[in-house]
């Protein structure tokens, strides 16, 4: 999983039927110090996150597990909203 900031959302009226009613979020991955790290990506939302929030997301097939048994065709999914993180 990685930290990210939600920087946008996507409306796609014509999409795979197993993506219907799912919220699509644009994520900017973050480094441990909170700075931008790497390319932005689009992820399905499994937790009710919104623009401006700091979240963590999972990559891979596991991103579809929250929607089981629906086979959601995604490779990234938001699975938590971060309250804060502490560096040692």
């Amino acid at each position, binding site marked *: *999983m*990685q*930290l990210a900031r939600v920087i946008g959302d996507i409306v796609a009226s014509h999409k795979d039927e197993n993506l219907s009613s799912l919220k699509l979020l644009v994520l900017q*991955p973050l*480094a*441990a110090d909170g700075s931008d*790290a*790497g390319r932005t990506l689009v992820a399905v939302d*499994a*937790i*009710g996150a919104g623009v401006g929030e700091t979240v*963590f997301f*999972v*990559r*891979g*097939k*596991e*991103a579809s*597990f*929250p929607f*089981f048994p629906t086979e959601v065709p995604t490779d990234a*999914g938001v*699975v*938590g*909203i*971060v*309250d*804060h*993180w*502490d*560096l*040692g």
Partner: protein
Amino acid sequence: MQIARVVGTVVASQKHGAFEGAKLLLVQPLTLEGEPRGTALLAVDSLGAGVHEKVLIVMEGRAAGQVLGRTLAPVDAAVVGIIDTVDLVA
């Protein structure tokens, strides 16, 4: 598996149910020389690893889910060992 250092802890009240009770650590993957490699990532921990410790992480969903003891958990990384030493044969 990869070698990483625990660099922080993450608190998230609102998260998927599979994470209930799981500890979330921020870990920085390392090269064999101990240099940071790539971006820090989140891993679930059931071993009780602490900040500054060197750990072994899996970055694959099925293995990470096993650490939580839950099937169909939306996780892709987990701490599976706390490293005492790494010996390299020159």
